[in-house]
């Protein structure tokens, strides 16, 4: 059997897996990005206690390997009476990691907003919350969109970790198919190609980086 034929056999099973991967990426971002904004505003807050709590959470989230967080959520939480099915557990775990990592990106964005912007908001009598919501965040989010897209791609690849708690995403389907047919190379390269095609398409559509154009962001 040629490689293409094998791929053809795998594809009907792999495509739903890719769909799970995409869903997992999106749902992790939905959990992680608000968490990232929250942690970022926490680490830049004026109150020292708030800053330390936020910073500790960020360092814990970034310090712990994604797989450990995943296992803790999936196998650890049931011990305290909270059982999550595998997709939800993967969402929570990847969401936590996403929150920790993106908070640092967002924090850099917050710090990149010139000090004068905050001063102007304050001088107009805006409350600290409105200063953040109406003046600082809209500018910071614009700055951080390219690095956040970059992170989203890393996360998309990282969802393959959910394989470890048998979420039926792309990698676990590839692995299953491979262990049944013993065609490891064919199955895993197809999965790899599918990961790559989708992320490259996304990058191209978003126009983040065109290697043919010099000086593009």
């Amino acid at each position, binding site marked *: 059997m040629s490689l293409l034929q094998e791929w053809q056999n795998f594809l009907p099973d792999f495509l739903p897996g890719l769909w799970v991967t995409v869903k997992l990426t999106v749902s992790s971002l939905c959990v992680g990005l608000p968490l990232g904004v929250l942690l970022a505003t926490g680490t830049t807050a004026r109150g020292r206690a708030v800053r330390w709590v936020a910073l500790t959470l960020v360092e814990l989230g970034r310090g712990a390997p994604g797989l450990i967080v995943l296992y803790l959520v999936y196998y650890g939480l049931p011990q305290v009476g909270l059982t999550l099915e595998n997709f939800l557990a993967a969402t929570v775990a990847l969401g936590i990691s996403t929150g920790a990592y993106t908070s640092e990106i967002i924090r850099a964005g917050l710090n990149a907003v010139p000090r004068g912007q905050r001063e102007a908001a304050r001088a*107009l*009598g805006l409350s600290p919350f409105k200063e953040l919501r109406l003046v600082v965040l809209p500018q910071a989010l614009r700055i951080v969109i390219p690095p956040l897209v970059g992170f989203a791609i890393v996360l998309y690849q990282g969802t393959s970790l959910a394989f470890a708690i048998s979420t039926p995403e792309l990698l676990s389907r590839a692995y299953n198919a491979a262990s049944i047919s013993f065609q490891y190379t064919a199955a895993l390269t197809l999965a790899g190609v599918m990961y790559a095609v989708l992320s490259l398409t996304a990058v191209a559509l978003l126009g983040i980086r065109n290697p043919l154009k010099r000086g593009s962001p």
Partner: protein
Amino acid sequence: MTTLDVPLLRLQDICVSYKGNRVVHDVSLDVAGGEVVALIGPSGAGKSSLLRSINFLETPESGTVLLSGNEVGAGQRRGRTQVSKTALAAHRRDVGMVFQSFNLFPHLSAVENVALAQVHSLGRSREEAKKRAYQELEHVGLRDHAEVSPAKCSGGQQQRIAIARALAMDPKLMLFDEPTSALDPELGLEVLGTMRRLAHEGMTMIVVTHEMHFAQDVADRIVFMADGRIVEQGPAKELMRNPQHERTIRFLKAVRDR
């Protein structure tokens, strides 16, 4: 003392420090309603710090700020003057500020810049705020730039939008922190023209500036600061013509010899 005798702004023994380094020493200053005061002096004299302490962008280490006879915040804690958030916001609504670097919000159009705080700080309706924003842009001669992003405007236009933004809050007092220092002479002139008109309309203004012609022509009073203290003050023309203090003479001579 009748209300007529109460100065619009009274600063009493204001001290400002940065990291233990005192940059304003016990400065007291009264400004009457409708008065235009120019704050001049060499760099590092504490002019901007004093100006910024009026609306608490710099929290004074000690001293009191009274607006229309009412003290802004009271008492001290942790060695700094403490003001409640609501009292501070209310005070800042009464005091307009124009910055050297304009500080317009780049993600908003000109009219949105002028309307934002009217809605979110004064609580005006969006329609009311927008209508007022158009009026103020008209006031500074930029009605036709209302929908334009600040980045597409010249420096002089940006500063006039910033002035409109401050005026739309109906301030009792306007602070200008070197409003023309970031502009070339020509663009500076259009901003000075707007400020001159504002002064004629009776706005109370405190202007930190290096524009000596403007200070002499438009200000009622010039306050000369050096080393964190007021060295000399007096009616604008008199002080320019006949400075008394040796430090003032030296500064004005340096300005003229340029």
